[in-house]
């Protein structure tokens, strides 16, 4: 019934342009990655997989990929249980200090990452964690924790804690009642939180620039260095793969995330 006014047409046109601005750069990468040209040309002269071959046959890129995947895997394996335990404690406890602790756990989202990176670098130099795998994992656990905490807290909001009390009154101990009653019901927000921690670890660049080195350099650090020196279409291939991977993970995560998170 609504008549389409000129104002509305203008609004739709502006929005369409903004959306193109948002999406186009992400989409432009794929055609470049399949182009045969050594330098960026558009439209590509012919299709080819040479940049993908370049990537998969280069030991340095492969080593960096292994580092990234290993770091992301251990980050999720550590950050998820820690984050779930913390979120559970925050939601159950009535201690006043919990509010402060909750805020503290969100600090990685508040402190500019360059500051965190330099600070961790200074600390790592002292304790000998620079250019090590544990050092990288630990830093990514710290960055991933807020995602798990936020996601699981959202999941726990729609969970009725009296169910757990019932289970305990029937003789389960606290631990068993958590695993038997609570965890299955918040499972999807746990998985979503874990996936966000994984993506965050895969993407992390700035801390890696300061604290990683030698054979333990993640993909993002090598990409950053490569982008600073010369623009090689191999990066377009890597970017396309990374984008495809994180979109798939986000799809899985958002299908599992409770509404209103």
């Amino acid at each position, binding site marked *: 019934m609504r008549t389409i006014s000129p104002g509305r047409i203008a609004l739709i046109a502006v929005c369409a342009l903004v959306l193109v601005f948002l999406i186009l750069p992400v989409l432009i990468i794929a055609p470049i990655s399949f182009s045969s040209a050594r330098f960026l040309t558009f439209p590509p002269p012919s299709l080819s997989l040479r940049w993908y071959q370049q990537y998969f046959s280069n030991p340095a890129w492969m080593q960096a990929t292994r580092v990234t995947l290993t770091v992301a895997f251990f980050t999720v394996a550590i950050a998820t249980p820690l984050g779930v335990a913390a979120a559970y404690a925050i939601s159950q406890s009535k201690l006043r200090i919990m509010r402060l602790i909750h805020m503290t756990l969100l600090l990685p989202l508040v402190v500019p990452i360059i500051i965190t990176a330099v600070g961790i670098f200074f600390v790592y130099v002292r304790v000998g964690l620079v250019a090590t795998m544990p050092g990288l994992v630990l830093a990514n656990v710290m960055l991933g924790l807020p995602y798990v905490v936020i996601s699981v807290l959202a999941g726990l909001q729609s969970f009725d804690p009296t169910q757990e009390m019932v289970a305990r009154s029937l003789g389960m101990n606290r631990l068993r009642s958590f695993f038997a009653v609570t965890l299955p019901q918040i499972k999807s927000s746990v998985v979503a939180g874990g996936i966000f921690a994984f993506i965050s670890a895969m993407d992390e660049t700035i801390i890696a620039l*300061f604290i990683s080195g030698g054979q333990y350099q993640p993909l993002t650090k090598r990409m950053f260095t490569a982008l600073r020196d010369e623009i090689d279409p191999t990066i377009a291939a890597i970017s396309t793969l*990374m984008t495809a991977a994180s979109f798939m993970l986000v799809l899985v995560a958002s299908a599992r995330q409770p509404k209103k998170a």
Partner: protein
Amino acid sequence: MLALVSPALLVILALIVLPVGWLAWQSIYHDGFTLENYRRIVTESIYWRSFALTFEISLLVTVLALLLGYPVAYLANAVPRGWSVLILALVVLPFWTSVLVRAYAWLALLQRTGVINQFLRYLDVIGEPLALVHNTFGTVVATVHILLPFMVLPLYATMQKIPGDLMHAGASLGAGPAHAFVRIFLPLSLPGVLAGCTMVFVLCLGFYITPELLGGGRTVMVSMLVSRNVELYNQFGAASAVAVVLLLSVLLIFFVVSRFISLDRVLGQK
């Protein structure tokens, strides 16, 4: 319960509270107490110019993001559900693309031999390629691109809570659409504007990758001062002082904003 939360807390304390504390200490202590590092920020032009530039760029990026983001959030809120899901999906999609990937994309688009220059030359609009990147322009474009979702999402969330009846009521009392928008909708959406602007501004203050890759070394933002003092000049005290001032600016902004709206609202996204 404290036992359950303590492992996570320990990680945060060890990897963010302790390192930041270390920076603060290092900025005022070097063979004794000193304010030399802070004096330098005030007196040496490269430091305060960089702070000024960073605030200018952040302000510009925030205003641009607001101008681009507000109509999108408004439209997403005014169309039927299927369309709004699509619009929001398009907004969130780049959100989940690596910042590095998007920096690469903008380099591919904006450089001298990039897609945009080639296209414009093909159309004979320009003779010489335009200098679109390795300058402040390229930095601002890519930064707006990265931060725009942080503006749209809180705006959309706030607008969703504005009852549509209010606009009808305004119309029934004789207000035209424009008048009703300015008097009713706009004021009610201001908390979202504040939340979005805060997030974009604060994130922009600490931006590193984008200005480093697209700024071409001339657009020295504060984050780059920090990293150069560490990596190139080994000036740890200076780097720490710059980091402390940057962090205090961010905390001050959050503190001031928290007087007006709840911080949960600002940090709710990502």
